[in-house]
């Protein structure tokens, strides 16, 4: 009896760090989503503020770089990827996607604002948007991916350079 109690306590004690790390990754996943949302908002506040100068360029670059960093974090850490997918599956895609991603119209407006005298003047990351979104899609698990593709608001194929 005594031994079984010790085993149970020991198991709980050993499982505790794993649980704590799991919770930390859930928190991190939520923060990653919030960060992307904040970057998108900062970017949208500047999109029509032409001609672009340092402040606008930083906001634009910040959003695209954030997607790249998010993809990097998700591909480097499979545990974070797992928790992220759990958190992501709880989102209402119809409401969340417009807060996180650009639609075709906004993207084309951005590219137009970035182009002057034949020259593209924004960060090179802007041109890679399609690729960045594709990388993000690849980080999603099957059910999230299917939902993501089926939701019009998250539609990735809408944008073409």
């Amino acid at each position, binding site marked *: 009896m005594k031994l079984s109690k010790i085993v149970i306590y020991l198991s709980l004690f050993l499982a505790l760090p794993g649980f704590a790390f799991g919770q930390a990754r859930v928190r991190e996943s939520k923060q990653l989503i919030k960060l992307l949302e904040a970057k998108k908002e900062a970017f949208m506040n500047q999109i029509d503020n032409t*001609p*672009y*100068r340092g402040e606008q*360029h930083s906001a634009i*670059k910040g959003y695209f770089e954030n997607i790249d960093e998010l993809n990097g974090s998700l591909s480097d850490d499979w545990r974070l990827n797992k928790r992220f997918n759990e958190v992501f599956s709880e989102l209402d895609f119809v409401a969340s996607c417009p807060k996180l991603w650009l639609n075709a119209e906004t993207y084309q407006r951005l590219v137009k604002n970035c182009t002057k*005298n034949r*020259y*593209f003047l924004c960060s*090179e990351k802007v041109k890679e948007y399609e690729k960045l979104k594709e990388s993000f899609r690849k980080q999603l698990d099957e059910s999230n991916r299917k939902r993501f593709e089926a939701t019009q608001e998250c539609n990735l194929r809408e944008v073409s350079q």
Partner: protein
Amino acid sequence: MKTSVILFMALLSTSARANPPETITLQDVTKRVSESNFAVYQNAIRVYQAKESIKAARGNLLPHLNLWDIAGAAADIYTGGGTGGAGVVGLISDIVPFLIPANWFRVQEVKLLYQADQLGYQALWANELMSAKALYMHVVLDQSLRENILHNIEEVSNIHKIVQMRELLGGAPQGSAREIEIRLLALQEDKRSMEVLLQEELSQLSFAMGMPAQTTLELTQIDLPNMATLEPLNYDDFEFRAVDSAPEINQYDYFIEASDYVRRETMYSFLGASSMSRGAGGGVFDNIPVTPGLGFGTAPSMRIVSAQKDILKLQKLGAEEVIKRQLKLLVNNYNLDLENYRNLKKRTELAKAALKQLFERLSMGENFDMLTLVEASRNHLSAAISFYSVQYRFLLNEDRLARLIFHGDYGKLPNAKEQIEEGRKP
């Protein structure tokens, strides 16, 4: 006689086959510099080395067999531990190198230095490409100038003949023909100098494209831009892009990040120092003294790393300022050429009209100072040269701008790995 003609024709065709001129376009320059330029190819190999260094560093984290160390440790044990068991402890770096934190930091450093090397490769490739394209444009410009000089020589020779005749008949003052002959000789010197310059430029261009020395090049003309329809540029529009896309600046970010790992490596040196190489681009940190063990030298070593980081930050700032200044100068020159374009076009037209009028007066038998005609011909040549020069300078400035912001051809960086696999082996 018939045999010798056949022999001569055969020799001619053989020599023509041995060294036929190779026709190239400006687009070919981009392709050839990317594929065959010696410096670019050499740098691609360097990037390849840096990439392989990552694999080497990762592999070195795994146990490896060092027979001499094992023999030394065995001898220690057998002889009663003459080195106090240090030989056995020393085996740790062979058997469990992953237990030495410095080795893990080295792997991270090698990864970052590889990224920096790739950016260095991009900068070098872009510079080589820009130089080769500039050479191409200079050759085409100089060929146009040579044509103009030849035309002017023909004009002045005709005038010289007329003046000689008039001098004989007493219609022109004595010594006029001599004055014109002096100018004619000067023009012939210019023509010869131009031909030598062209040969030199063509030789440099073929070298930039990694072609053999015996190659004869034939360049296709470039379409000159219609500068009248272009708008002037604004420096502020381009500043962000020039700084953001500059590999010369961005590679410092990787060096700075790598310096953090070098600091950690120094900090944990008491758990053993790493003997792994930092790879092809590790020279930046070669002067950092990292000694195994915790000693009085650890703290100064860490301060040296911090100071190295400060140096790198300053170098990054310096590179940023250089790029900004280059851009400012470039935009000013671009706008200046746009402003001058109309003036120069008008000047060329006026000089041509003045010369034409003088020739008409001459053909109608009018008597005037022949030196005026020579002067008008020289003015026409000078205006035409200025007009061509401004158009080519504009093209050059456009290309330099494209290099600064990595636009057009400069946005198509060749893949270093493909370069190695598909390219020519030295």
